[in-house]
């Protein structure tokens, strides 16, 4: 019988400092010490162990077609994520999973995809962004509207520059900065400014709860129906398999039934997220 609580040891093969300072973000690439049949879908998560500190549920930010590493971008917040930030290349962590439903990518084939992210909220979108670009023929136009508090808080900066050739990218920062040439203001305002078309489109948004709330209002205003809007939810988790009892929103366990919900579904659920 498989024991779901046992993590598989994995080595950190690279650490990239995305954002420094108070809201530090690092991107870790990992490889299992022993070959593992770990396969996953876009939007799924994994439970990361820092041995001696505990576990934390982190979204997988690499795309499923990449097979030589798993990537996680982590905001330094609590005990485990702080400990993760202290780790270096060649250190060993534990990984179990994948968990959650992931994005319904099959249903989105042939549609235009509008990604709306804020801060670390780009990480859960990153696997589907890459998958959509990699399989360009299967999807329509791909647009990313992404913002952070300041230019220092933007993740995947180098990659974003390179991706501009392959997709439409609109960036924003909350406040004026000397060399900033793109939009200044909050992400939902940038959505209203760029006016993505709801025609044959799906909008996927992830970021701080308040950003998601107003982004959905903006999207509704632009004509997106609730079933065209998807978001990901996070709640505190300990098990990942719907047993420890804390990540539930009503009868739904975010670890198992989520983290991806259409707004049509989520708006009928209790606001316990």
């Amino acid at each position, binding site marked *: 019988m*498989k024991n779901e609580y046992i993590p598989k040891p994995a080595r950190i093969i690279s650490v990239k400092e995305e954002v420094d300072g108070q809201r530090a973000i690092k991107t870790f690439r990992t490889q299992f010490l022993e070959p593992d049949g770990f396969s996953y879908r876009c939007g799924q998560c994994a439970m990361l162990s820092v*041995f001696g500190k505990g576990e934390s549920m982190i979204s997988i930010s690499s795309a499923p077609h990449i097979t030589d590493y798993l990537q996680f971008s982590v905001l330094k917040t*609590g005990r485990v994520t702080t400990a993760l930030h202290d780790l270096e290349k060649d250190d060993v962590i*534990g990984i179990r999973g994948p968990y959650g439903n992931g994005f319904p990518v099959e249903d989105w084939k042939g549609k235009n995809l509008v990604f709306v992210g804020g801060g670390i909220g780009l990480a859960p979108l990153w696997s589907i962004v890459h998958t959509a670009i990699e399989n360009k023929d299967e999807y329509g136009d791909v647009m990313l509207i992404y913002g952070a508090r300041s230019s220092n808080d933007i993740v995947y900066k180098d990659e974003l520059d390179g991706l501009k050739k392959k997709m439409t990218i609109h960036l924003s920062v909350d406040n004026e900065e000397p060399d900033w040439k793109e939009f200044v203001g909050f992400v939902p305002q940038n959505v209203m400014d760029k006016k993505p078309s709801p025609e044959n489109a799906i909008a996927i948004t992830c970021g701080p709860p308040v950003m998601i709330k107003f982004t959905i209002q903006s999207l509704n205003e632009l004509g997106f129906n609730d079933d065209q809007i998807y978001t990901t939810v996070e709640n505190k988790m*300990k098990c990942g398999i719907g*047993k*420890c*009892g804390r990540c*539930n929103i009503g009868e739904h366990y975010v670890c198992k039934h989520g983290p991806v919900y259409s707004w049509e579904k989520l708006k009928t659920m209790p606001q316990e*997220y």
Partner: protein
Amino acid sequence: MEKVLLKKDLNSWAGKLGSYDIYAPFKSGDVWGYELMENQAEITLDYPNTAIPPKKILFPQREVLFEFEATQEGGMEIREVLPDDTPKIIFGVRSCDARGLAKLGKISQGGIEDVYFTRRRNQTVIAGLACHNPPSPYCFCTSVGGSPHSLEGMDILMTDLGDAYYLESVTEEGVKLMGSAEGIVTDPDDKQKADKEKIHSDSEKKILLDISDMEKINEALSEIFDTGLWDRESLSCLRCGICTFSCPVCHCFDVNDEIIRTHPLKGKRVRTWDNCQFPDFTMHSSGHNPRSDKASRLRQRVMHKFRYFNENCEEFLCTGCGRCIEKCPVGIDIVEVLEKAKTYEK
């Protein structure tokens, strides 16, 4: 299989079960609890009910999931720690608590299986005991689909006939266990059968609490999510957690690493009972808390038991044992809350 065992022979039967770990009710001070019996002659089933339900035997309050240790070569060795495989018998489990174990089984073994619970459950035989009189004035098993002599979760149901126990096997495991009493037990006569039936039907009538219209509770609860009822009912809550600690089906847990500070890369991953009434149960590391007040936490406990679990498994996550009512230091009464929920005017 149905047999009759004279009370004076209970301990000689237990004496034949040397290959099992035997758990039975044991009184320590004023409190009954399940203990591993060192001496089979000490087993007594003359008790009301235990303070803490037998879930602790299958789902201990603290258990090690695995041990880890960094290796010389720069890897990490992980040693799974499984429960020992000694077969167990739990004597005297009341019908509410046996149903509780069955419900815990649905949670632990539904979907991705919990290896630790399953391993313990598969090696445990439940020899339960029907209630003559409700062990507590707060018993309400009959309101939540149970009864003082429910067979759910039992391998054997025992009924006290005065000088003897009436034994009914429920599962193959029960038949096997009763087989070990051959030579000590006798076949029941008609009077004993009739006595047992009468005890069972009388016992149902003695339950004091009765919640009407339980089939409508799911709908009633769905309509009062955002109301002041929860503020009012939770006002006196001390967040002590005794309601979930003493509950036969509450199963929420925490997972943490235990290390010695001098050896930070050698330690144990440990699971412990946790509690939905504690404020930090759902608190994100950012400080954001989806259930940040007492009202939302009491609502979660009630909704989980009578609505959410009902949605997922079509039954209540409550066995009506009454412990949470009896033990709450400030008198929060789940039956009263349900009654108010049914009639709440928005």
